[in-house]
């Protein structure tokens, strides 16, 4: 059974699964791509909201609205690589909670503020390493492993926390979580942009990135062509963990406390961002640009709903419908053409 999705339209001559040596150029191909679609959607959302809501396009408001999604998007970047590689990590929110608890513990035991970021990232990496070892050494499906580890990580976090919460974090963390550069651009957003550029560079210009696509397209063929498939998988799980740790550091700094329900349910929001960005759940296709556009689109919709005083839960309906529509519409259109 084919679970292959396609951007449709010109599917007859260009599958998303073909790895061309060089992407085919041409304006038409560019316009039909997922990224163009998302960019149009983003412009549409910005335009409609800008007309309907008076203060929507205020630059300060726009800049502040990035706080809503920066941490999630930081996790979405490595998640995109994982999904391109045919793996998935459900445990990211658990990792985030555990790193936040690790920061809290370290801080409560008198560690200096500079040590907290390395601790968060190391905790995340350790958790990711556990996921990666379970997947690569024991050959277990990543979805099953990470469903197990999410309850393990979050469970450990709540064991440490009990019914208390860690608060009173140092000023340095609040600076990174809530602070601005030049009193205008939120620092978190800058961190996100830097990492997005880094991930895009690695995925789209280096041989490491090409190998990730190769693994996602056909892990067995990739192994036979001399790629250390398991090493890549392990590294990607550790990277995802580390980024979840970083997100945990920023989020803890922003909200200034660690509670047991920190980042509850984020795994699905992060995965939604990635899928909406055009990364194929079957692996082997997708771009960082697409993911970032999806992140910004979702951010703009959320922000618009907030400005219009619509409860946040409506957002989940919008996200769900967007997700379904973007995968179902191309399929429906193609079926009609046949």
């Amino acid at each position, binding site marked *: *059974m*084919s*679970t292959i*999705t396609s951007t449709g339209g010109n599917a007859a001559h260009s599958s998303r699964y073909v790895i061309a040596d060089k992407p085919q150029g041409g304006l038409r191909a560019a316009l039909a791509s997922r990224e163009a679609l998302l960019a149009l959607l983003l412009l549409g959302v910005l335009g409609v909201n800008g007309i309907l809501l008076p203060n929507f396009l205020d630059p300060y408001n726009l800049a502040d609205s990035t706080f809503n999604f920066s941490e999630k998007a930081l996790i979405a970047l490595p998640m995109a690589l994982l999904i391109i590689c045919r793996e998935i990590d*459900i445990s990211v929110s658990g990792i985030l909670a555990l790193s936040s608890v690790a920061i809290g513990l370290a801080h409560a035991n008198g560690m200096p503020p500079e040590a907290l970021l390395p601790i968060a990232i190391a905790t995340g990496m350790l958790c990711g390493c556990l996921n990666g070892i*379970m997947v690569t050494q*024991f*050959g*277990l*499906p990543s*979805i*099953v*492993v990470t*469903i*197990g*580890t*999410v*309850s*393990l*990580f*979050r*469970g*450990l976090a*709540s*064991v440490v*926390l*009990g019914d208390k919460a860690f608060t009173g974090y140092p000023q340095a963390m609040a600076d990174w979580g809530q602070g601005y550069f030049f009193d205008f651009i939120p620092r978190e957003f800058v961190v996100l942009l830097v990492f997005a550029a880094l991930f895009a560079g690695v995925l789209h210009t280096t041989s490491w990135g090409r190998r990730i696509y190769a693994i996602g397209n056909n892990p067995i063929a990739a192994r036979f062509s001399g790629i250390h498939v398991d090493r890549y998988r392990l590294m990607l799980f550790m990277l995802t963990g580390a980024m979840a740790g970083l997100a945990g550091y920023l989020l803890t700094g922003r909200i200034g406390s660690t509670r047991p329900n920190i980042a*509850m*349910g984020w795994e*699905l929001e992060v*995965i*939604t961002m990635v*899928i909406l960005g055009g990364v194929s*759940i*079957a692996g082997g296709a997708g771009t960082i640009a697409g993911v970032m556009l999806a992140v910004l689109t979702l951010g703009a919709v959320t922000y618009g709903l907030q400005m219009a005083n619509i*409860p946040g*839960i*409506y*957002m*989940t*309906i919008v*996200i*769900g*419908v967007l*997700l*379904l529509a973007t*995968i*179902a519409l191309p*399929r*429906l259109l193609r*079926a009609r053409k046949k």
Partner: protein
Amino acid sequence: MMLKMRETQLALCIVALIALVGARAPVFVTPGSLSNLLTDSTLLVMLALAQMLVIVTRGVDLSMASSLALAGMMSALLASRFPALPLFIVVLVAVAIGLGLGLINGYLIGYLELPPIVVTLGTMSVYRGMVFVLSGGAWVSSHQMPADFIAFPLTKLFGVTHLVWIAALVVLAAWYVARYSRFGRDLYAIGNEPSSARYVGIPIARRLLWTYGLAGAMAGLCGYLWVARYAVAYTEIAYGFEFTVIAACVIGGISIAGGSGSVAGAVLGGLFLAVIGNALPVVKVSPFWQSALTGLVILTAVLINARNGKQGGRQILPLHLNKATGSAA
């Protein structure tokens, strides 16, 4: 032979666990406590059975908990608006709503051939959001619901609650469907080798449509039972429960890669998680440990199952290499 079966091992584990907890805290093995345990496990077991059928086809239904919440909320709203409505109509409505939600999943997955995990991820958000829209974010609490609506699940019949009877019927039905019905066997075929299943003429799209429909209907039924049992309906009911259900399946040895899994496995997986959940307070382990222990159990179970799976490939037909016939099979 019997001892080597995964289900037997799991059953022994459960008995050992109950005995162990009983040794430390005798109150755990009293009939009352065990009957409570059984009642607590029913919803998980029923949902795990439906999820099992979905997983067998190489799919997964992440929207189950949301369908449960939506059907539960609608049945609660219906019962509180029209208290005169007979109970079975309310239940029927809940099942029908669940069925409808499931059929939407099934159509997208079966006929449009979209990946199950993405589709159900999307519908999960939509259904959960709709609970909020329908209820306006308000709670429906026990005094708004009619008395018979709340009383039904925990009313006792021959010493055990209605919940247990319903679960028993569901287990029997699932056992028949998975084992003997053409529909059920087709699901295993689809999960084992979709392209072969297509060649032998199994209507894959239609089967998937009804599998997800069935999962939805089960979620609908459980939605009513959940709301009535806990006597409250709000937007976040059963939030995150989809993972617990999948965990029960995984512990029961149902392969996430599709094509294998048994009714007994799903039932025992659900029971196992229920035993852990009920045992922790009894042995005075902080409830905060529950989630961590559940995670450990899932990981251990998949590790053991993976090791079992490695011992030789499946032999479908007896070998006729020597004069010895396949008596060992």
